[in-house]
């Protein structure tokens, strides 16, 4: 009985291919949207986690002011070299500290120019940022101390200015001075924020302070800690020390921020998760609308087939058998829509993930859940029309034209 009812439902669906397809479309789009949103959201979260953890799990980033991300620091005073020395000397957990200044500017090589991010720092910049050198070398002690005009460039800068050529030993014009390229960084690709990490030039801190910013200010500190377990302790000590050095009284808030990589991951992930949830919810509403579409068509179908229902009831179909027939039809319609939705979502997720340079993470749970939800929608929205069919009076139904 169940099997033949299923066949009957399939035949009804085939009989009205266009209408069945349009009815299913709501469910197809709903399911596809939910799965795609959640899959891409998960991919984005994963990408952020990967990016941040590639920085190393034992890294502290200290910035003036209380905000995350690049940009102006709302009047909070920058750091000085003395702060860097104090941290390095007084906090035993610190392994390396990279004081950094950053400026966006145009650099020139030969006839080509390129707008990039120019950093001043020390050799710790490489280790704290998990940078490897593809060619050349790091700064020498003399270059750092003397503020000599040397620099290391990222892959993007090389590509834009030198093409495939070896840039080491070539001169690079920055602002009004020329510096010698001594190294090339291994490419890291796009960052979690969507920016190109390879679009970078780094030179000794003193060189940048003297020739570019003209100030002794330091805009960020990257501190790597000996032991991952000591990171909370190190963070507390850095905070205490900086509060003292910056004369912050007990009643005042910090005018700088110390972030560890875990915290960055959490902050970014939670934002992505909220977005994923919101978009998923919007998509779920479209699933609901799809369900109402199915109910609508099933009601039309019951009216159209009143006579057929009358015949079935007259020859002895039980109420529940007629109910089952229409319910199964609705469920087949909606789960077929769900199935197409899952396939569509897989195709959409893979291509969108590739387009957005996110990893594609197949999530069996959300696929299964969406599919089951679409079937459940068939049951819920198919029940009312099916019950209406089952409760028809056979005499009136047979008279129906």
């Amino acid at each position, binding site marked *: *009985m169940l099997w*033949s009812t299923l066949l009957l439902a399939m035949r009804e669906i085939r*009989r009205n291919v266009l209408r069945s397809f349009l009815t299913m479309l709501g469910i197809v789009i709903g399911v596809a949207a939910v799965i795609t949103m959640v899959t891409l959201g998960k991919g984005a979260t994963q990408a952020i986690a990967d990016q941040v953890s590639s920085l190393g799990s034992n890294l502290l980033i200290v910035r003036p002011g209380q905000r995350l991300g690049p940009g102006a620091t709302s009047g909070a005073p920058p750091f000085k070299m003395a702060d860097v020395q104090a941290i390095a000397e007084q906090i035993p957990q610190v392994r390396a500290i990279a004081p950094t200044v950053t400026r966006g500017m145009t650099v020139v090589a030969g006839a080509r120019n390129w707008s990039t991010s120019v950093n001043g720092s020390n050799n710790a910049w490489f280790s704290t940022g998990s940078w490897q050198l593809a060619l050349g070398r790091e700064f020498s002690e003399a270059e750092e101390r003397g503020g000599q005009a040397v620099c290391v460039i990222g892959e993007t800068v090389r590509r834009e200015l030198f093409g495939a050529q070896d840039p080491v030993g070539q001169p690079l014009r920055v602002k009004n001075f020329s510096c010698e390229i001594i190294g090339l960084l291994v490419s890291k690709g796009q960052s979690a924020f969507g920016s190109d990490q390879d679009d970078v030039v780094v030179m000794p801190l003193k060189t940048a302070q003297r020739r570019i910013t003209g100030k002794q200010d330091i805009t960020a500190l990257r501190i790597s800690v000996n032991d991952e377990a000591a990171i909370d302790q190190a963070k507390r000590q850095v905070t205490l020390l900086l509060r003292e050095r910056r004369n912050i009284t007990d009643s005042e808030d910090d005018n700088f921020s110390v972030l560890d990589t875990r915290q960055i991951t959490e902050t970014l992930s939670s934002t992505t998760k909220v977005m994923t949830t919101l978009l998923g919810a919007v998509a779920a509403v479209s699933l609901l609308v799809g369900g109402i579409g199915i109910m609508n068509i099933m009601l039309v179908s019951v009216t159209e087939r009143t*006579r*057929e229902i*009358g*015949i*079935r*009831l*007259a*020859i*002895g*179909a*039980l*109420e529940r*058998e007629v109910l089952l027939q229409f319910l199964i039809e609705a469920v087949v319609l909606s789960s077929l829509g769900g199935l197409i939705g899952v396939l569509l979502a897989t195709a959409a997720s893979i291509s969108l993930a590739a387009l957005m340079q996110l990893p594609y993470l197949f999530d069996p749970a959300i696929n299964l859940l969406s599919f089951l939800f679409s079937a459940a929608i068939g049951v819920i929205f198919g029940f009312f029309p099916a019950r209406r069919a089952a409760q028809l009076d*056979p*005499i009136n139904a*047979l008279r129906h034209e």
Partner: protein
Amino acid sequence: MDLAMDVSAPPLIELRQVTKVYGSGTASFQALRGVDLSIAQGDFVAVMGPSGSGKSTVMNILGCLDVPTSGNYLFQGVAVEQLDRNQRALLRRSYLGFVFQGFNLLARTSAQENVELPLLYRGEKLGSRHKLAHVALESVGLQGFAHHTPAELSGGQQQRVAIARAIVTRPQVLLADEPTGNLDSQTSNEIMQLLSSLNRDMGITVLMVTHEPDMAEYARRVIHFRDGRVERLQHNGEVA
């Protein structure tokens, strides 16, 4: 099935003081005003009467599609008025077959599948469904038309498919509501001959509503209805 009529056996169908009222209050309409009726196993009864005389109402009640407002309907001794909707559906699928004026076949469905429909609800297996449907189609003279849809069949052929569908479950009673109403006179006679032979050869009790005296002549007995009552009973001679 034994054709011999046992006078002492209880009648297959018995109506006792059956009334039927549609609606309520001032808008109510009394379709049946106390009908007593007794039909024996193997009988062939035609119900006649002008429209509004209650003949359709009595057929609906006899077909267990409707229940009397008062009075009793005994089918093989069972009080039908006390059965619920589902029990009446089970009774219909087990003991009754229906033939309608408008054929009422499922459109775009083959003759074979139409005939198999009642078997489906009885839970017959696929193999036996095919076999029984084949036999039923053969007994109405439609072998070779199993895969035609109603649209591809003439009116007479459609009615034959409907009759095959009604008898495929080997029912006790065949209820026919104006079975020849949509057919020309020659086809009508063919259909009536078919019903007669089913009654005679298979022992199926046939109850038929008609307004054509010619068709009523095929029946053994004719019950005339007027104003919700049995006006008179007429016995025809043995039919050919």
